[in-house]
């Protein structure tokens, strides 16, 4: 079968030696919502820039809607809609003017142009604000207009780069329902990037976890969670501990696996989390490690991330935070 989006071994190093992509591959089936998930700086936006022909990979191949992004960029551009992280709205133009220009740029003319703009304004709840300049729009309204611009020319593939970042909770929920609605449109393939794991869990059928420029795990959210059998056990210490010491102390507990230690937090898995807690506590106490708290929970995508990237999501995110 042919994929709506396919990338093979994409490599990209920016000037200054920052390696953004390090052999990233992915494949997206037509008509599905695909999530690219990872912390800031993982390479999600670079991937989108290459797939939307804005940027070029140093090596590797990519096909979107059946066209090679390198040798047939114009065909790719006609087939895709792209909603970037930076909105790119013309602040001095009205909502309608933004849509009309967008349509013109894609070759739409005449009556169809005006109809399509009006249809999208209504659908995204912007009809009352249609003839006000974008400067006067709220953040949520601007983001909805961004998505409307991406849909103006009825693309086959829609890229949404962090569509909910910076939105307030209410606007975020609105955007979620909009994306869910879009996913129902016949044949539309959506690739969205997000650094909210719960968002990918809720919206996507397939997802790929990206870390340091590569895909470290891919599958449906349920498959990925399913690979983690049992419960997550998280121990917080009073003060930072030696990872090796903590692991050694727990070596005798056979039900416990996937032990990972960050300075003040230890994460592990167990088939029956509650049952191992007493043993864990006494072993750590015997090793002289002061425990502040223990929690047991069902697996989440955070745990999936931890398992594949070898560090917790929030930790990875803060490594590159400005």
């Amino acid at each position, binding site marked *: 079968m042919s994929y709506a989006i396919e990338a093979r071994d994409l490599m990209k190093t*920016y*000037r200054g030696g920052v390696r953004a992509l390090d052999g990233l591959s992915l494949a997206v089936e037509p008509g599905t919502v695909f999530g690219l998930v990872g912390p800031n700086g993982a390479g999600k936006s670079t991937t989108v*820039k290459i797939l*939307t*022909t*804005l*940027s*070029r990979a140093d090596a590797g191949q990519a096909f979107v809607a059946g066209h090679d992004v390198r040798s047939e960029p*114009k065909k790719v*551009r*006609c087939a*895709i809609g*792209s909603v*970037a*992280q*930076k*909105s*790119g*709205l*013309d*602040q*001095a*133009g009205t909502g309608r*003017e933004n849509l009309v*220009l*967008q349509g*013109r*740029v*894609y*070759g739409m003319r005449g009556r169809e142009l005006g109809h399509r703009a009006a249809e999208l304004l209504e659908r995204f709840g912007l009809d009352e604000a249609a003839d006000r*300049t974008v400067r006067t729009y709220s953040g949520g309204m601007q983001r909805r207009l961004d998505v409307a*611009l991406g849909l103006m020319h009825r693309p086959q593939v829609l890229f949404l780069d962090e569509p909910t970042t910076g939105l307030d909770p209410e606007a975020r929920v609105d955007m979620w329902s909009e994306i869910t609605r879009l996913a129902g449109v016949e044949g539309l393939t959506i690739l969205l990037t997000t650094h909210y794991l719960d968002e990918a869990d809720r919206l996507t059928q397939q997802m790929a976890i990206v870390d340091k420029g590569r895909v470290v795990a891919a599958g449906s959210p349920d498959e990925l969670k399913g690979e983690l059998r049992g419960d997550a056990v998280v121990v917080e210490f009073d003060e930072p501990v030696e990872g090796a010491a903590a692991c050694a102390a727990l070596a005798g507990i056979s039900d416990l696996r996937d032990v990972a230690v960050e300075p003040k937090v230890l994460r592990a898995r167990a088939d029956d989390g509650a049952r191992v807690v007493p043993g864990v506590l006494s072993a750590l106490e015997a090793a002289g490690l002061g425990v502040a708290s223990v929690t047991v929970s069902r697996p989440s995508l955070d745990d999936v991330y931890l398992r594949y990237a070898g560090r917790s999501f929030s930790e990875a995110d803060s490594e590159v935070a400005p």
Partner: protein
Amino acid sequence: MTTAIVESWFMMVRHLRNLMRQPWWIAISLVQPVVWLLLYGALFRKVVEIPGFGSGSYIDFLTPGIVVMTCLFSAGWSGMGLIDDIDRGTLDRFLVSPVSRGALIAGRLMQGALVAVIQSAIIIGLGMLVGATYPGGPAGVAMLVVCAVLLGTGVGALSSAVALLSRREETMIAVSNFVLLPLTFLSSVFMAQTLMPGWMRGVARYNPVNWAVQAGRGALTTNVDWVAVLTRLGLLAVFAAVCTWLATRAFRMYQRSV
């Protein structure tokens, strides 16, 4: 090709419309050349009395200079709008669309040219009100405007190139401030070439601002030296073409660094 022209037109309409929504911009860009014309006209009125100046009326001499200077400054600052488009992601939005890359530059230059024509017409009319005469007639006036527009196209393209390469308003402001006024004073906008120090005259020979002023002023005299005027017109056309080419190169460099 036709698509590219149509798309340039759409882009030009967008830029013009956005300018029209900034009343302060309109007010300032109308008032500024007026102030220049009246201020410098009064300040330097007596320089025509210096032996060797070669013109009877300073306002006759100055008006073409102010037309060129106004176009130079508008064009020199035009890259600021592009930086705004880069910062907001608007440029990237158009770059992932099938729009012709040339239209993204041409639309801005066309808008600049149109504004330059309007500004020139206003200054020329105002010059007449305060006593300037144009013996070269309508043909001379048209030549002046064409020269000013060609200069503006070249400088506007360079300004876009600086915007694309630096992507910072601070750099843009520094470069424009550093370049625009010296270029003006190294030309015969205010002062007859014959009265410039020798080295300045030497520099002015290679200064496109001076080409535009000399050609425009030359075309407005009674006995036009068409060879001299058309030579400078040709130089200006080459200047505009080379700068536009440089801007497209800068565009590619921008895209490579995204």
